[in-house]
């Protein structure tokens, strides 16, 4: 891995092309990863740390101490007192530009200082509460379940329906085969927003409004999927199907036992796409699901923002959680994409 990452063009020294390509790669890496890392770091910040100016990269929060005689922990400041000595003191209260400070070591004596004479003592703390509290609040489990259900069921159905169509279009000769294929491909030219209203009307008429199936069913047949799988299935030799027919296999068994396993790399690619589409889908759930108990994570994220004040720390944590499944799916299935390409050349 390290050898791969540190590969150079020149034998030992760095060639100028190495400098150029590494510079290019680092710029790319930075522009792509910086926002995500910033998001992840911010999701661990406390509510007050998020609104801090100037913003910090690491999740700092102010240190606080228990002081005798006070119910709550008090925030710590490096304070310069009248004699010019600098020591950590806790703030009891603040009025205008004057703050009342107390030394945690001797809780009895209080001094008043100008707020410009003290600096907050910060430490790195990960506010895990942003995540743990999510589960108690906002019906988070419900949204997560809705999102997972829609994604999983829709992806399975998409794979099934599209592979069946692709099998027929790639392996059977019938009248109008080309026309049907062209028709399916032609629908790629129609943006989903154009058919949004008709889709809504149809969903409404069949009574699937405010039902997860109303989000799942309209989009399980995708032209991209049919095209992708058909092109891959064309590379599966017909002799395998003929051999299976000689082996007493029904057409369904040929599809299930021969075509599907051999099309696995293409199915994996489509599965990745489908999971990403469904998990990130916003528009269709937005028009179909109006009751909050049917909200997906994406809709829930959206609804957080609308209500008077935005609870950024929860919003950011939830955003991170919504990113995780897609990342995982991609990480585990991406090898299928490369093996799919690699094995295509070998008979």
């Amino acid at each position, binding site marked *: 891995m390290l050898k791969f990452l540190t590969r150079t063009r020149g034998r030992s020294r760095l060639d100028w092309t190495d400098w150029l390509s590494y510079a290019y790669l680092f710029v790319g890496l930075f522009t792509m990863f910086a926002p995500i890392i910033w998001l992840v770091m911010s999701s661990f910040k406390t509510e007050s740390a998020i609104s801090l100016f100037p913003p910090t990269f690491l999740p700092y929060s102010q240190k606080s101490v228990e002081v005798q005689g006070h119910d709550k922990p008090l925030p710590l400041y490096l304070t310069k007192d009248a004699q010019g000595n600098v020591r950590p003191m806790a703030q009891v209260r603040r009025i205008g530009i004057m703050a009342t400070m107390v030394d945690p070591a001797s809780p009895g004596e209080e001094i008043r200082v100008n707020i410009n004479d003290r600096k907050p003592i910060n430490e790195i703390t990960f506010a895990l509460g942003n995540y743990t509290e999510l589960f108690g609040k906002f019906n988070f489990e419900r949204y997560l379940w809705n999102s997972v259900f829609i994604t999983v069921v829709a992806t399975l159905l998409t794979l099934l329906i599209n592979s069946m169509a692709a099998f027929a279009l790639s392996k059977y000769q019938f009248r109008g085969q080309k026309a049907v294929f062209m028709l399916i491909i032609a629908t790629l030219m129609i943006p989903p927003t154009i058919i949004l209203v008709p889709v809504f009307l149809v969903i409404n008429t069949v009574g699937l409004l405010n039902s997860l199936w109303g989000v799942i069913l309209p989009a399980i047949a995708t032209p991209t999927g049919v095209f992708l799988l058909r092109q891959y299935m064309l590379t599966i030799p017909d002799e395998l199907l003929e*051999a299976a027919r000689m082996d007493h*296999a029904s057409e369904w068994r040929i599809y299930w036992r*021969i075509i599907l396993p051999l099309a696995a790399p293409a199915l994996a690619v489509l599965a990745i796409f489908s999971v990403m589409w469904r998990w990130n889908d916003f528009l269709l759930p937005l028009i179909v699901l109006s009751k909050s108990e049917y909200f997906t994570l994406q809709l829930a994220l959206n609804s957080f923002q609308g209500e008077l004040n935005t609870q950024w720390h929860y919003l950011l944590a939830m955003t991170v959680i919504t990113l995780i499944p897609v990342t995982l799916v991609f990480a585990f299935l991406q090898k299928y994409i490369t093996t799919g390409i690699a094995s295509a050349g070998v008979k």
Partner: protein
Amino acid sequence: MATLELRRVDKAFGETRIIHGVDLAVDDGEFVVFVGPSGCGKSTLLRLVAGLETATAGDILIDGERVNEVAASARGCAMVFQSYALYPHMSVFDNMAFGLQNMRVARDVIDAKVKAAATLLRLGELLQRKPTQLSGGQRQRVAIGRAIVREPKLFLFDEPLSNLDAELRVSMRAEIRDLHSRLKATMIYVTHDQVEAMTMADKIVVLREGRIEQVGSPLTLYNTPANTFVAGFIGSPRMNLVPAAAAVAGGARLPVPDAHTIGIRPEHADVAAEGPLRVRITQVEQLGGSSLLHGRTADDLPFEIVLQGQTEVRRGDTVGVALPADRLHSFGHDGRRL
């Protein structure tokens, strides 16, 4: 075990007719080889029997029953493909068991049958491997094993040895012959290699451009080819065909006076100073035990001679060739045997 009968079978792809009214009868337990140059329709004929193609006209009968409308899976045939067509995602065991699983055979029966076939074909060690981990010869044996576990009525082989190297081809040839005598099954074997046809067949069917040229045992075809095509196709090196007029001019006595073309096999021709044909030698192959002379006649037709032992003839020599009358084949204007 089964018989096969073809009655006036025609096959056309669109406007192109591939098979022209083929009649053929195959007896129970016979090993029949379809042989012919590429594009002669031999594979198509096999696929018609298998049910992978449908005949445009005519009847195909297996065990006396018309099967034209019967699906490939229900005809009781097993086929070995040129590319083997092993299922790449299944182990050797699953490849062989797939057919039986489709027939809903009990699991322990499948197990026993696959094991038995694996032992027969010496595949016992390889049952858990995937086809990609096998050599060409092993893949070939798995393909045959897949065919035999189902105990089909009819075995169909579509050029099964053409992807193997020469040495393996010879040994697999013997293995398939051996298998045939053990299983006593009816087998139809397609090849373009006449040596394969000669060494394996009980009965050879020579095809050209969708028509049967001759049907017969290997020696029948060798000794009495029905026409110039079969004469030139069967036998290696191929039979020399020269115009009868040229031989007569040299003083040869012909068995049939009005022959148009006469043929003589290279192994029957002999170098003789007074022979009726003059052949200019263009190449000499000394094999030790025998010698092969390549040459050209006065009409610039190719002529080959196989001599026993070693020869003094050199490249560039012109030699006389004796044409013993009892070894000559005579053909008429239309190429048919007289």
